[in-house]
């Protein structure tokens, strides 16, 4: 008897030393405690007040041993230090160590309002992980991040808040005032405003669409670098291995390398390199440039082809070689007025058709009817037999 009296008193002495520092307060209508498993189940108008947050919910389970707090039903949490509010259906909060804690919310949807960044995050599942004062937010299932300037939708978003970057996975789209990005995977550097992607991504900006498999878009500078690119603007389509986007006098200037295909209205072609000046709408095809107009059975080859879409003219420089049907004209300079269908070739143009060979100062090809007009000093050889 004395022994257990002593034990009781000892137990009493051991209390009290701790009570002065209490700062987590929970109120509820009812509580069930499984004291063998150290599990507290609170229900009915539950409120939880800690130094970091204030929460109200229908039910709360506290597993003391596992250092886990679970809640369900009408959860509203105001995070004081983090200046944010969360509305959710369920919550599981675990402190794995002093440095690492994890809070998982589910709901349809969970809504996290970040008052500091004036941003709202929604998703069917939101997990907030804090590790060594670094915070990450994982959002899954109809994930949405939006503020007054930006809206991101995705199947899954990982937001590394402390490191200031965001990873977006499948079915992602980023909408801003001046562009829409659709992607299967992208990394967004929040402060630098740079988007890096290694999955197929489509950028729609005004009347331009760029689809690429890998690349980087600098939102501040409005420039893009990408691989395996398809560029589309109105009637122009360029497919290339690489795209570099520069700024010239504040205007966009694109450099396409290893161009596989260029389609401009009814013309189709390719070149080693293409430069495209967006504002002037001028396409400059360099090195082994080639375009064809199948409707006219017309091929144009040149070292350099310059297509002025505003003027609807094509300038040819270098080793120019034109073929329409059975006629071939070679020269070193030329221009093609697409409106009048006139191809004017200078720079020692040479006309060939079968065994006919003619040199002239200027050769003009009407691509609408395949007629050729030669001007200036003309020298040539005609195969009369064949003419008969």
């Amino acid at each position: 008897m004395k022994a257990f009296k002593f034990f009781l008193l000892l137990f009493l002495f051991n209390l009290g030393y701790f009570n002065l520092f209490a700062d987590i307060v929970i109120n509820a209508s009812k509580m069930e405690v499984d004291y063998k498993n150290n599990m507290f189940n609170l229900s009915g108008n539950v409120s939880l007040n800690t130094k970091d947050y204030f929460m109200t919910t229908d039910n709360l389970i506290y597993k003391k041993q596992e250092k886990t707090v679970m809640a369900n039903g009408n959860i509203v949490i105001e995070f004081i230090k983090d200046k944010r509010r969360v509305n959710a259906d369920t919550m599981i909060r675990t402190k794995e160590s002093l440095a690492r804690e994890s809070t998982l919310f589910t709901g349809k949807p969970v809504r996290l309002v970040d008052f500091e960044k004036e941003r709202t995050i929604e998703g069917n599942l939101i997990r907030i992980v804090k590790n060594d004062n670094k915070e990450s937010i994982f959002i899954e299932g109809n994930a949405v991040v939006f503020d007054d300037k930006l809206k991101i939708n995705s199947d899954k978003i990982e937001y590394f808040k402390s490191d200031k970057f965001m990873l977006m996975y499948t079915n992602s789209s980023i909408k801003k005032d001046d562009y829409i990005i659709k992607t299967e995977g992208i990394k967004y550097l929040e402060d630098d405003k740079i988007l890096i992607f290694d999955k197929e991504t489509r950028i729609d900006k005004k009347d331009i669409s760029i689809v690429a498999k890998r690349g980087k878009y600098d939102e501040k500078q409005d420039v893009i670098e990408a691989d395996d690119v398809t560029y589309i603007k109105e009637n122009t389509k360029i497919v290339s291995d690489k795209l570099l986007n520069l700024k010239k006098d504040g205007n966009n200037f694109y450099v396409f390398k290893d161009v596989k295909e260029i389609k401009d209205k009814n013309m189709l072609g390719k070149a080693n390199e293409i430069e495209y000046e967006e504002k002037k709408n001028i396409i400059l095809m360099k090195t082994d440039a080639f375009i064809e107009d199948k409707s006219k059975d017309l091929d144009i080859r040149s070292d350099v082809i310059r297509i002025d879409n505003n003027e609807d003219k094509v300038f040819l420089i270098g080793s120019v070689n034109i073929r329409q049907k059975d006629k071939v004209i070679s020269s070193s300079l030329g221009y093609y007025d697409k409106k009048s269908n006139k191809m004017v070739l200078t720079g020692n143009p040479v006309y060939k058709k079968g065994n006919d060979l003619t040199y002239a100062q200027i050769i003009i090809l009407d691509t609408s009817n395949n007629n050729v007009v030669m001007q200036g000093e003309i020298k040539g050889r005609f195969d009369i037999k064949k003419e008969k």
Partner: protein
Amino acid sequence: MKRLKIFIFILFFHYCSQPKIEEPSASKEVNRFYAQNYTYVSYKDDKPNMFLSSESVSYDNNSSNFVMENIISKIDSGYNEYSYIVAKKGMYNLENKVTTFFENVKIVVEERYLLEGTFFRWKGNDSILETSEGTPVMIKDKTGLIVNGYNFSLSVNLKKFYLDNVSMTLPESENEGF
């Protein structure tokens, strides 16, 4: 805190000291008896499941009640776990095996929780410890947890207790799950 320690030490020595045995009063009725330093052992399934010690006890065979003062009790919770109760006053009913503890009641539940209140009832047959409706209870544990509430009910068999209108306070700690 010092005052509490001194008080509890005094209480401790008081319990351990042997008071004088007084002669039974001549005015007591025949159907009652009075004793001092009394220990009562209650059995369940041939095993002792409750030890009741009190400084004084009187028995009324009309109501089958033992009325006790300055009680210390030990309750077997099974699996070699025990609960301890101290109270200023108490009453044990021999027929229904219900023990009621009054005034300054302190209970240590299986070395886990300290309960404090003015009224507790131990139902020996059901192994249930409870308060009457509307009675406040304070619960503490060694980590500094404090719970205040009403309508306390504890089932030793289920290892669970229930409480209404709860206010729970936990100590400031960086690693409690909150």
